[in-house]
């Protein structure tokens, strides 16, 4: 970090933003007391996954795209499966869909437990990381690890292993877990749900900067349940689209400072995906235990304070544990564990809710089921402009802070989004400069 005065002109630069997935940097310039340039720079090399997919068999898309991210591989697998099945005009059975939702709950539990307890909470408590936090207050960190372990167990049982599951295929699964294997998940998930409730109470007690952002929220919405792996795309201003519709409306552009594409909705508008958006558009669909936890934590039906996203994420953690328990209680092994998906010419789209936001895929297949073209739009690409817009608002409202605290606040702002820079292209550098 570099810090320069006088006070009315400053540049905040963070050259190594910690506790995010991937590598990038951040620069904010303040001129005459007004925030000017705000740039989130993503300098990881581009990863060329969309090009790698060309010429590969339709059945390979879930395993190839899963490798984009070690934190949310299931999200990639599920969006890929939905898109390929859409292109081949195949629908899976309800039992397969339920098992997909269960493994996805496992990923939400893993990812949210990690972000809340290890990556984000230290910001609010003034610690550099979870190790420092654990040395002062070990219980929350211990709790986070236990919750995460329950998520790992779900992934291992349904997916074959905790990271990059190997049991997912286009059309369903290679093998359905036995009822006994699934039933064994109940006890650790019950404990995880109790721990998640304690974490909601814990994070609700943090101090939050008093900032409200007028977001345009975008997320999946489903008539029967809180969205994870299915639903149409809705927005806070009335959009109602299927996966093909969002794919058409979202335009991505390359900017010099980033190896990740910047996404705009309708070619011009900043929008937000992720927990705040899901919650704003779907909070009524949460089960009673999660709704009650949210209310006790002081959340209304919509939350516009990005710093309070940690509470929303914790409420979603309660939901994911509870939903996994519901699915376990109702589990009947899909038989067969997958439906046949013959590769045929067509175009297909798939959209699901990764832990950090909407993820959609589009594939074009030839007569033999080979992939002619692929498009993958991850949540962090969609949120990049919102991250910069939030930084602008937060810095403007926080100019009275000394440089070091302002840089800290900037990093915290970025982490509100739980960005996965690795997915978007990959770490982060912050610079605050005042002139």
């Amino acid at each position, binding site marked *: 970090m570099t810090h320069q005065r006088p006070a009315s002109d400053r540049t905040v630069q963070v050259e*190594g*933003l*910690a*506790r*995010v*997935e*991937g590598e990038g940097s951040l620069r904010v310039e303040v001129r005459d007391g007004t925030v000017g340039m705000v740039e989130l720079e993503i300098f990881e090399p581009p990863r060329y996954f969309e090009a790698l997919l060309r010429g590969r068999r339709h059945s390979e898309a879930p395993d190839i795209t899963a490798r984009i991210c070690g*934190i949310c591989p299931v999200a990639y697998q599920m969006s890929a499966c939905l898109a390929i099945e859409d292109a081949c005009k195949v629908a899976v059975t309800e039992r397969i869909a339920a098992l997909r939702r269960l493994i996805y709950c496992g990923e939400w539990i893993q990812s949210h437990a*990690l972000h809340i307890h*290890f*990556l984000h909470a230290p910001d609010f408590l003034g610690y*550099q*990381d*979870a*190790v420092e936090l*654990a*040395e002062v207050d*070990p219980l929350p*960190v*211990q709790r986070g*690890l236990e919750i995460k*372990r329950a998520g790992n167990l779900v992934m291992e049982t349904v997916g074959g292993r905790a990271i990059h599951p190997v049991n997912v295929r286009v059309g369903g699964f290679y093998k359905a877990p036995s009822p006994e294997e699934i039933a064994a998940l109940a006890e650790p998930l019950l404990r995880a749900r109790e721990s998640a409730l304690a974490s909601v109470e814990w994070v609700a007690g943090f101090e939050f900067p008093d900032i409200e952002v007028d977001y345009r929220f975008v997320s999946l919405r489903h008539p029967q349940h809180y969205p994870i792996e299915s639903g149409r795309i809705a927005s806070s201003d009335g959009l109602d689209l299927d996966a093909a519709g969002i794919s058409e409306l979202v335009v991505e552009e390359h900017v010099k400072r980033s190896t990740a594409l910047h996404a705009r909705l309708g070619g011009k508008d900043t929008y937000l995906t992720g927990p705040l958006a899901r919650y704003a558009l779907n909070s009524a669909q949460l089960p009673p235990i999660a709704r009650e936890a949210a209310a006790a934590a002081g959340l209304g039906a919509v939350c516009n304070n990005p710093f309070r996203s940690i509470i929303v994420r914790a409420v979603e953690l309660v939901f994911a544990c509870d939903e996994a328990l519901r699915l376990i209680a109702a589990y009947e092994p899909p038989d067969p564990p997958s439906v046949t998906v013959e590769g045929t010419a067509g175009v297909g789209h798939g959209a699901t809710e990764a832990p950090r936001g909407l993820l959609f895929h589009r594939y074009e297949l030839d007569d033999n089921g080979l992939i002619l073209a692929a498009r993958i739009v991850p949540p962090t690409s969609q949120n990049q402009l919102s991250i910069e817009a939030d930084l602008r608002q937060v810095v403007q409202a926080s100019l009275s802070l000394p440089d070091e605290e302002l840089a800290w606040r900037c990093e915290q702002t970025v982490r509100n989004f739980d960005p996965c820079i*690795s997915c978007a292209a990959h*770490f982060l550098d912050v610079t605050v400069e005042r002139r």
Partner: protein
Amino acid sequence: MTGRVLVAGLGNEYRSDDGAGPAVAGYIAQRAPSVDSRVISDPLELLGKWDEAELAVVVDATRSGEEPGTVQIVDLGGGEHADSYDGPTSTHGMDLARVLRLARALGRAPDRVVVVGIEGEAFGDGHGLTPAVNDAVPEAGDLVLQLIGEHT
């Protein structure tokens, strides 16, 4: 568990000599199948696996400037004086010393941690050890077995 010993071969076998730890874990599994010997790719995975061990031997590739294949031993004891890398924490890497600090804070550290290092030469993409490192695997493995023998 009384007397429990864990051998953790730390590393990624698809990054050339970073696979030295996993190779030694395989050596131990062959010669002493009763020993709990595991391949670990991320030090954070040690949490939950080494919690109740009296002795944890962590085998890892090193880059200390020694000749490739040099086997070194660092006894961290209970981790009271383990120095940690002072860089930012990310989900993409927490070093062994920091994981040990975290484990101690959580009351989940082994009684004693010994690191056995094999100096690596190449850490780029690719499967397989360079000759000097490959030749050092039995020496490191035998050293691990000796440490276990002395412990029990």
